[in-house]
């Protein structure tokens, strides 16, 4: 007997699909450049907000969202590879992939906030660092994308592998939140706390707003447009 249980809470699913859409848009706008580079920057700030939300949600979200519940220890990975893992959320290998993706995205966004393209674009925190440091961070931002591309390839390849070989659809649960499991293993996750959600959302909005608009308070002289003289 199999039953459908809730595995991914709604905020987590919205986070996932918004992040996928935002990363795709960031790649496209970054590749085209021109006028779209400003959108690349704005999308980067949105991604920062999403990542901060996920970080907080990893402590206050429902059980499968919490880092402590899926943190992949070597013992867990070993057990999983031997086929002894019986959980419903991120399996230990998937958890490695999740943490790597989050770390690389944080690095890309973090570097991008200080980056410049030597044309007419500067990240929102560019005024806080020297030009040569900004150039180094721009290179990290650029080359770091290759690491992200590899991880995204593995992420999608794993989903295809699960669907084709293990006959396990991972995409539908990420849309509906529900997964079909044997009845004797059915452990429903609790409903997410709305107050906790508001706290997580507030923190992420505050951080995103802070980097987008807060630099003028940290470095007012550099952020103000220059006054142009008549000569």
């Amino acid at each position, binding site marked *: 007997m199999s039953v459908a249980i809730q595995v991914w809470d709604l905020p987590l699913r919205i986070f996932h699909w918004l992040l996928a859409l935002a990363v795709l848009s960031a790649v496209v706008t970054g590749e*085209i*450049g*021109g*006028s*779209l*580079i*400003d959108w690349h920057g704005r999308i980067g700030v949105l991604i920062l907000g999403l990542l901060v939300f996920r970080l907080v949600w990893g402590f206050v979200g429902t059980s499968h969202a919490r880092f402590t519940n899926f943190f992949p220890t070597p013992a867990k990975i070993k057990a999983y590879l031997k086929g002894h893992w019986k959980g419903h959320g991120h399996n230990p290998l998937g958890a490695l992939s999740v943490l790597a993706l989050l770390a690389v995205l944080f690095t890309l966004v973090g570097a991008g906030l200080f980056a410049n*393209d*030597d*044309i*007419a*674009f500067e990240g929102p925190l560019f005024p806080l660092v020297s030009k040569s440091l900004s*150039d*180094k961070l*721009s*290179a990290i931002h*650029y*080359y770091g994308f290759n690491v992200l591309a590899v991880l995204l390839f593995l992420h999608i390849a794993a989903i295809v592998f699960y669907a084709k070989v293990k006959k396990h659809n991972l995409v539908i649960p990420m849309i509906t939140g529900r997964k079909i499991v044997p009845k004797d293993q059915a452990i429903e996750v609790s409903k997410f706390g709305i107050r906790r959600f508001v706290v997580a959302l507030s923190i992420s909005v505050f951080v995103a707003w802070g980097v987008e608009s807060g630099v003028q308070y940290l470095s007012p002289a550099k952020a103000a*447009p*220059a006054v*142009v003289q008549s000569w």
Partner: protein
Amino acid sequence: MKSKLAIALLISAVSTAAFAGAAEDLQVKFRQSAYSFAAWNASKIKSQTIDHPETFNKDQVIAAANAIAAVANSGLAALYGPGTDQATGWKKSRLKPEFFQKQDEVKKVATEFNQAANELQKVAATGDIGAIKTQFGKVGEACKNCHDSFRTKDDK
């Protein structure tokens, strides 16, 4: 006599070493200056049309567009002599060595930049902020095309 010859040889050896690549370094210095000056003017156009359109000043935008076009039309190709990928101006050049093997592509991206800059100059003269923004984006794309093909992403 022998010691004088030795001194003369030493002086010529040292001066040759000191001036080796001086012409190349100067070319890199000039071109880095040219693009920095263009970037400064680009930042003014961006500030007055995109980031703070309330500060739009037609004359200043025209002046900035004229300056970018002047840089583009100044004959920058003369600053890309052989060996300048290894030379140092204000800092080490980030020119990729393949610049010298792909001259057809170089000509293509360089011509695109010139045309985009000339068009920006024309559009700026009309004072139409929307049109300036659009053409400004095209100049940025032209910059990016060359950077993507012929400029390393970090210091060599």
